[in-house]
């Protein structure tokens, strides 16, 4: 019976001019957005690849140089462009693409692409994920708002009920055709977005992520479709069903994200750049070089080095003292950075928690956030990148300081190292958070999606069954 209902729905769609127009509009928008994402991801990945090659080249070809001079010129860590960024850019363009890994300073990521966009549209740029969530869900609403209400208005629900069709089968028949169509679009959009990664090899495609992305869209869009049917079953007329569904859609697409974003920065304001920079300067630099922190920090590091080399005193080792002090400063400053950047990260997390809370009332916002998490274009991926870059910076600077400490002797900053040392510093290789970590991070959003799905099934089936019973009894 369900098959018959689905076949009937598909037949109705094929005869419906409105559906054909919708199909073409969504297809064109999805295609264009996917190609744009394709193009942007390709450009970003190529620029990064070229930058990495160049960074490696200028580093190893810098010639004879003081290790500390080289540490000031330093290296850059470039953020990887995930293959799925083409489908779901998330907050990728609003976060820095590179970290300067210089001596003395932990720098935040810089080079945000959003700064260079035209900014003539009041809302974010087109992406395949956005089109599917915004236009796709609207299309589902248009297709499904009359599902029960119109059958009731025309009286056909009575004859359908008389054939013995259950409420569940009726809802399944109505929803399957529309949601299946939306999912076909999702698959097309994901596949088109992944073309550069597949053919040009700019980044690795992880099949579990692709499957997960399609799966969450399947859950999100099915939940929305079922909710449209539930609203249709709850309303006496198809007009009321459309108005109710449209109100929900607007609240979820515009209202909740806007108010959530505003609330997140009102409750947890962004850190002031100047104040942050001042704190770093005063606590990590001035406190050591001009304050009283230097003595204890140097003494502690001296002891560590002496112990490491089996000596009782640093001076008996004959190592360069200036380099030892430079590294002592790094050890001291790193603790300050861990604290201050930790506070900054806590602010981001707090903002993110507000947005996470908002997903409880908006399955479409939940879908957007999970989608960005799986695509690796979210805050989690950005924080992983900056944390890994900082660990890499510490390794590089420690290596350079150690070389100077062991080999500079009395030459101090006049000591020159060469290519052999530069080649010892590895290139930065970012590792995005694994899928399991993403799932762990977004459990609230996933629970929200599943909760909405269960609620939608229960309400849609329950109210449809009731509507059928009422029609049969009257």
């Amino acid at each position, binding site marked *: 019976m369900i098959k018959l209902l689905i076949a009937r729905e598909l037949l109705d769609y094929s005869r419906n001019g409105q559906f054909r127009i919708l199909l073409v509009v969504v297809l064109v928008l999805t295609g264009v957005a996917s190609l*744009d994402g394709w193009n942007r991801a390709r450009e970003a990945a190529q620029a990064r690849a070229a930058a990495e090659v160049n960074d490696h080249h200028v580093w190893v070809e810098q010639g004879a140089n003081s290790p500390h001079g080289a540490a000031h010129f330093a290296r850059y860590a470039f953020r990887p462009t995930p293959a799925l960024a083409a489908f779901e850019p998330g907050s990728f363009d609003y976060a820095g693409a590179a970290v300067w890994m210089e001596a003395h300073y932990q720098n935040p990521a810089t080079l945000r692409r959003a700064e260079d966009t035209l900014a003539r549209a009041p809302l*974010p740029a087109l992406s395949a994920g956005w089109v599917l969530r915004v236009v796709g869900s609207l299309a589902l609403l248009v297709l499904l708002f009359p599902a029960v209400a119109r059958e009731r208005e025309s009286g056909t629900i009575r004859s359908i009920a008389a054939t013995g069709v259950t409420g569940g089968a009726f809802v399944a028949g109505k929803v399957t055709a529309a949601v299946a169509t939306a999912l076909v679009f999702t698959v097309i959009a994901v596949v088109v977005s992944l073309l550069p990664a597949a053919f040009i090899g700019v980044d690795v495609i992880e099949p579990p992520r692709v499957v997960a992305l399609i799966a969450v869209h399947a859950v999100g869009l099915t939940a929305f479709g079922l909710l449209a049917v539930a609203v249709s079953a709850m309303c006496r007329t198809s*007009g009321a069903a459309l108005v109710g569904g449209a109100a929900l859609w607007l609240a979820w697409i515009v209202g909740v994200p806007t108010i959530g974003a*505003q609330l997140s920065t009102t409750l947890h304001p962004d850190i002031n*750049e100047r104040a942050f920079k001042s704190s770093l300067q005063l606590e990590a630099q001035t406190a050591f070089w001009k304050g009283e922190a230097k003595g204890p920090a140097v003494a502690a590091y001296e002891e560590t080095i002496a112990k490491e080399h089996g000596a009782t005193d640093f001076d008996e080792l004959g190592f360069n003292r200036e380099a030892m002090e430079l590294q002592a400063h790094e050890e001291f400053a790193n603790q300050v950075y861990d604290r201050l950047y930790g506070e*900054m990260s806590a602010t981001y997390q707090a*903002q993110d928690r507000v947005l996470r809370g908002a997903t409880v009332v908006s399955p479409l916002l939940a879908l957007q956030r999970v989608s960005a998490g799986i695509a690796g274009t979210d805050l989690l991926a950005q924080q992983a990148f900056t944390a890994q870059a900082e660990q890499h910076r510490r390794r590089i600077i420690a290596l350079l300081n150690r070389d100077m400490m062991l080999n500079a002797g009395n030459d101090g900053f006049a000591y020159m190292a060469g290519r052999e040392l530069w080649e010892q510093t590895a290139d930065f290789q970012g590792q995005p958070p694994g899928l399991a970590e993403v799932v762990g991070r977004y459990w609230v959003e996933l629970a929200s999606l599943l909760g909405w799905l269960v609620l939608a099934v229960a309400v849609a089936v329950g109210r449809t069954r009731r509507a059928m019973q009422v029609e049969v009894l009257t």
Partner: protein
Amino acid sequence: MIAVLVRQECTRLLRRSPARLALLVLYTALAVWAGIDGLHWKRALAQAQHDRPADLRQERSAWMADLERVLSSETSSPFEARPMNLTLLAVLPPGPLAELSHQRESIHPHTALISGWQSDASLFRRYEVEGSSALSMRGLDLTYLAVVLFPLVLLLSTFDVLSAERHTGRLRLLMVQGARPALLVLARLVTIAVPVWLVTSAVAVVVALVGQEADGNLGRLALWLAAFTGYAALWAAAAGWIAARCARSSDPAMAAMAAVTAWVVVVLLVPSFAQFAAEAVYPTPSRVAYLTQARQAEAQSRRELEQRAEVYMAEHDIHAGSADQAVPGFFRASYLANININSSTAPLVARFEEQRAAQAAVADRIELAAPTMLAYRILQDAAGVGAERAADYRRQVREHLKVLHEAVGPATVGRSRLTLDQARAIPDFRFVEPAVPSSAWWGVAWLLALAVGVGAMARRAARRVAPLDS
């Protein structure tokens, strides 16, 4: 008659339309919230700019005092009053009415330190400390409310004004009593659009007056209000047209669908699509590519330092004999690296500017058919915010850096100092606020013309509305 209808609509709104009333209350609350947030943002930025930057090692006045002292004494440290250390603070103040449109402003740099130590590539290397999640999701400001939410509230409140009356049979009764469909639509629009327009405008005026620190912004405020009024009038006309066009449908859902579709297409899709088209056709070089070029140039300069110093000295007629050998070489090494970075990246910057101009030209053309884009641009121009202003600031700072580089270069490479006259001749940086383009007022006129055109269509459509199906 219209007064009676308006009174009826008001009564209905207050007593029988809790959803509509709730929508208006919510909109008002959001407007007030957006206004207060804008004021807080502007004050916080102004306060931050008032404080001395942590990385500004020495004020210009202190540097000048050092120079005077050094030039008048026989002994001095080679590190004192070096030309490279002369630092000018370049501040981009918050836009004259930034409190009305601040949400995208945090992303742009608002300060830079201009000195010989900087190249074009490092001028705006600021700490990007804003959370990317919150930044990517647009928060509230009055411009967003005016451009995105105002039409939505209007459409949701008016789409069924005729179809619902017709559906219930009340339309016939009203027409018998002398009411015309156009008047019914007008009454509903007056009841909804006027309060929403008033709330937005009043909050904008109050916020602008409270946030105003200097005179001369009234013209901008007038433009902001005029653009919003034109845009509001256009949407009011469009709402009337949709209500009249869909009145013949016995199903108010069709009117709702048409209203939502119009909003989605005009507010969401057309501007996003236009921006995408402009950026896709004229892509700008990426920041990563720019950095790559700058790093290459810096590395090259370091390798060829001596040759570059000789060439520079020959070009500027500097005699090596006059150099103070006690001055460390890193001053001139950094200077030479920076000017090489600037000249190496200049073609990329020029290409960027060219592509941005082309993108803007495409957007300007599309704007005529995209009222949301047009209104959004004018409201931003009036408030003195946006990507164009930020780009203008960057351009001015780069020009100023060039002036400073030319002034301190010979003394830096020649390991000498500036004279007092040379130092005094270097101008301080002052951001020249771009004037509001005259096209903005033409844009307002275009919005009003569109509103009149759509209003005429709405009137014609309303005249055709019959109380019953024929």
